[in-house]
């Protein structure tokens, strides 16, 4: 375990009372409750070998409640303790930027549950406690749903308002955005849906007129100024209060859910700053969305609310179950798609997703969606973001353009990932990364300056997607829907295909320019030091491409309805091609190409649009885009960012297909110094301390003796240091020459020698071992399925070496011809 402590865990040693790194340390004050004080009466068993500690005979301990299944070998936390030892605060917690021990956490939880169940038979109060313990999970989900829904509603309302603030102000009440300002007005016309006297653009306020080129210039300048102001505020707040609030958050949350610890990433300051700056970043016109950051916000809510319940506060594995549900809540409030959210959490974000979490996530996502609906940010009591009104059928032959859109999505996705990673790597390594504030301002300025002239980039991206998804009826008056109305006799529901007018062609040109602009600017925007999400920009790119193709197909079908491909089903006067559907399919294809989502993408899309008839085209496009993108590059955007940052994330989807054995990967290698071990009864306190200070490993195996190298257990560095410090301060007679015993029974000491130190309680009595000839496939599988941090390697029953998660990641990187030194954390 080469522990490169890149960031010191707790650098606050100078402050006398500074103490812990994070608020989550508050839990340590109360002491752990699961370290029970159980004494085993002297079991006098006779065994031949003298340096063996005899295994425990279960008959002797049947009278006591024993939680240590030594013979079972699964429970890792030793329960047999000396009566004098009390549970120490700090033992059983983890350092920053380390991986948790899933097995230990899960077994701690099982023990706690068993204790509560056993006690519940004793009294009514204990029964109530056990009921409330079972109920606490559901209560927590309810609270998370409420809090996340409320925050998301607030974010939506504020973002809409701030976005419109770039264009003007409402005189009725400055808190109304453009649409709500003109809500009650009678001045709106069919052509200009948003015109009303209460809404004043900045040109009207400053120079008095709304028309003319000078007014245009004033509007332009004000737009750019507001955009720069918002972006500057966002990046300054992030930098000043919560640097962890930048970026999307999904790669880090994926890593956290797989067992990594990043203290402060899901804290309350991060929550507040992320919420506030997300609104600012989205309103500044940058090409980013708010879905990824909303997932981060929801996970922060989940983490903060976990502190209310002891069951989740103290157990890292249980907390991660809650965080998986919180991620589902995040997607649910971002899109108004609860089922899609649960599937997204299952597919993309979570590492371990037990079935119980599935039902709870669904509950939390529903509560959040319901809360969002009651806040009603969209003003139309609709839950979904881009509700489509049309239900026209599609023809089988249209699958060809849908698959074309899928290919486009896959190609764009792969290209985007490559370009974005290259840009982020440049930001990481060169001087570009030294000027984050300047970078944000420059990108915002470029975006604002280039976006204002084109009306399709000036409007917010969600509005653009809504307009593109919408099919044109007679009730629409936008430029995109300005068809030449020929022979209109029917009602407005079913419109035949019509030829396009010049307005539509102009709109097509503008959309094509918008497409190129968005494709390029999103590469630079994603990953900046403001909260930024990726879903909406990708969907916008796909929607524009889809709409362009749809209109092209529509016009082709109208003008060449006698071609053989159109003849069967697209007679003149029939409504055969719906460009809005092409936009939907294009959006799904591009999003799938970037994130490599499959089921969750389709479910999110049809929950977003309400169009259940269109599942098959969506699936076709999503699958095609995933295949094409996977053929070019294996990883989605989030995995690519994880690899860029060097997080110790063991990818669950990759298969390990090499024929190496455990002894090829284990440490120490042939040229390395031998394994640093602790012996069970022949080391002094000073020896242990020297070993700890001289090396940087995060754990040490405990063996019977140096000669026999027979395994006793495994002790973590952190637990050892805390115990020794505590012993030196609290216990009498512990000096540097005191003997350290990991055995169960300490032999009687001579009266002149110092008191012995018993450290058996901090040792893990059931470390996982494999033999040196175990194939690495099996070892990787064990690590993945059980969530191990380290695994000991034995040969003929004797301890030979150790494999850690980092070694495995390095080995996999080497096998894939990547740089093994890019794995940074332990």
């Amino acid at each position, binding site marked *: 375990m080469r522990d490169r402590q890149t960031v010191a865990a707790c650098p606050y040693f100078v402050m006398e009372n*500074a103490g812990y790194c994070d608020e989550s340390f508050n839990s340590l004050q109360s002491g752990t409750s699961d370290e029970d004080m159980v004494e085993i009466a002297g079991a006098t068993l006779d065994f031949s070998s003298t340096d063996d500690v005899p295994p425990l005979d279960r008959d002797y301990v049947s009278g006591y409640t024993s939680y240590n299944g030594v013979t079972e070998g699964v429970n890792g936390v030793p329960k047999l303790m000396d009566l004098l030892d009390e549970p120490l605060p700090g033992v059983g917690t983890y350092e920053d930027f380390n991986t948790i021990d899933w097995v230990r956490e899960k077994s701690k939880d099982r023990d706690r549950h068993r204790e509560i169940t056993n006690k519940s038979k004793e009294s009514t109060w204990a029964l109530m406690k056990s009921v409330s313990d079972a109920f606490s999970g559901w209560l927590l989900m309810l609270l998370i749903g409420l809090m996340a829904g409320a925050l998301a509603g607030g974010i939506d309302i504020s973002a809409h308002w701030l976005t419109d603030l770039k264009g003007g102000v409402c005189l009725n009440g400055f808190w*109304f955005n453009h649409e709500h300002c003109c809500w009650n007005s009678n001045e709106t016309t069919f052509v200009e849906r948003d015109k009303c006297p209460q809404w004043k653009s900045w040109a009207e306020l400053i120079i008095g007129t709304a028309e003319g080129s000078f007014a245009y210039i004033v509007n332009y300048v004000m737009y750019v100024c507001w955009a720069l102001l918002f972006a500057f505020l966002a990046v300054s707040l992030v930098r*000043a209060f919560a640097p962890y609030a930048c970026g999307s958050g999904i790669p880090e949350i994926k890593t956290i859910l797989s067992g990594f610890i990043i203290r402060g990433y899901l804290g309350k300051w991060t929550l507040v700053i992320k919420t506030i700056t997300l609104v600012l970043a989205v309103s500044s016109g940058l090409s980013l969305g708010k879905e990824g950051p909303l997932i981060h916000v929801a996970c922060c809510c989940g983490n903060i609310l976990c502190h209310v319940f002891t069951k989740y506060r103290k157990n890292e594995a249980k907390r991660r179950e809650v965080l998986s549900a919180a991620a589902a809540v995040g997607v649910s409030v971002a899109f108004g798609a609860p089922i899609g959210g649960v599937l997204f959490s299952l597919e993309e974000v979570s590492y371990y997703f037990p079935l119980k979490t599935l039902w709870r996530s669904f509950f939390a996502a529903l509560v959040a969606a319901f809360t969002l609906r009651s806040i009603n940010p969209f003003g139309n009591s609709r839950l979904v973001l881009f509700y489509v009104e049309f239900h026209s059928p599609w023809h089988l032959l249209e699958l060809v353009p849908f698959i074309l859109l899928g290919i486009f999505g896959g190609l764009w996705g792969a290209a985007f990932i490559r370009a974005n990673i290259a840009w982020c790597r440049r930001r990481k390594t060169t001087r570009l990364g030294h000027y984050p504030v300047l970078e944000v301002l420059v990108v915002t300025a470029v975006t604002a300056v280039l976006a204002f002239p084109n009306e399709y980039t000036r409007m917010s991206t969600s509005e653009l997607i809504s307009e593109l998804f919408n099919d044109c009826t007679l009730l629409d008056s936008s430029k995109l829907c300005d068809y030449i109305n020929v022979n209109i006799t029917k009602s407005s529901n079913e419109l035949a295909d019509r030829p396009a007018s010049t307005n539509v062609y102009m709109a097509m040109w503008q959309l094509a320019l918008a497409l190129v602009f968005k494709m390029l600017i999103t590469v630079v925007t994603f990953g900046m030091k403001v909260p930024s999400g990726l879903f909406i920009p990708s969907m916008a790119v796909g929607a524009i491409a889809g709409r362009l193709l749809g209109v092209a197909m529509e016009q082709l079908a109208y003008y060449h309805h006698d071609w053989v491909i159109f003849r069967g089903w697209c007679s003149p006067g029939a409504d055969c091609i719906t460009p809005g559907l092409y936009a939907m399919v294009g959006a799904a294809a591009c999003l799938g190409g970037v994130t490599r989502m499959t089921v969750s993408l389709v479910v999110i899309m049809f929950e977003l649009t309400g169009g259940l008839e269109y599942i098959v085209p969506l699936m076709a496009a999503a699958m095609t885009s995933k295949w094409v993108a996977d053929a070019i590059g294996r990883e989605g955007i989030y995995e690519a960012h994880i690899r860029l940052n060097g997080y110790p994330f063991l990818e669950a989807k990759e298969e390990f297909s090499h024929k190496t054995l455990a002894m090829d990967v284990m440490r120490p290698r042939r040229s390395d110094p031998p394994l640093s071990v602790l012996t069970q009864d022949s080391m002094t306190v000073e020896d242990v301390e020297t070993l700890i200070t001289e090396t940087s490993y995060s754990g040490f195996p405990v063996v019977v003796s140096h000669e026999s190298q027979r395994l006793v257990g495994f002790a973590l560095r952190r637990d050892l240091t805390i115990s020794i410090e505590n012993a030196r301060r609290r216990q009498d007679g512990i000096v540097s020459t005191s003997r350290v015993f990991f055995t169960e029974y300490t032999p009687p000491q001579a009266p002149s020698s110092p008191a012995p130190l018993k450290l058996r309680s901090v040792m893990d009595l059931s470390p996982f071992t494999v033999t040196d000839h175990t194939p690495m496939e099996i070892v990787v599988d064990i690590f993945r399925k059980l969530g191990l941090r380290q695994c000991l390697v034995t040969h003929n029953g004797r301890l030979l070496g150790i494999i850690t998660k980092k070694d495995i990641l390095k080995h996999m990187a080497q096998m894939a011809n990547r740089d093994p030194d890019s794995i940074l954390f332990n």
Partner: protein
Amino acid sequence: EITMSLIGMKVPMQLCLLLCSLRFILSAEKSDAKSSRDIRCKCICPPYKDVQGMIYNQNVSLKDCNCLHVVDPMPVEGKDVEAYCLRCECTYEERSSGTIKVTIIIYLFILGLLLLYMFYLTMLEPVLKRRLFGHSQLIQSEDDVGDQQPFANAHNVLSRSRSQSNMLNKVEHAQQRWRRQVQEQRKSVFDRHVVLS
């Protein structure tokens, strides 16, 4: 200074809860106090023969939300009314202007507080400190990255239980701890680019 540090530590948690509770209460209340400004029936009528396309807005209730009640004055004659109305689409919409108002005001309030606090931390506090404590105190080692000793951490872990004498120092220390935390985060994100490239 103490109140500012208090604010610095307590603001996020309390305001967060206040925010959420306020929003929730408001959204629950909206069904009772519905002003007439908050409902409308919007009818969109496309162009028909010589008549231009028009949009009609009136605040009527749900049962009156149809073409005949809302489209006033009717632009076509008697026998065309039915054909005209068939093309019109009327939707009933509700909103809660109170929720919007409260949300925006809360948001601006929190944003203002944060900006003030940021201004205070970056500009005023060094000036104040220099005036109160003299120049020497300012040369605190800002680069105190942690000691790599393993036992330093243990020391902190255990010494937490011994609390200081009064609240004032506690708050001060809490704020100092938070600032160091932010500094560490800033170093790893912005300077060393270790996390969140």
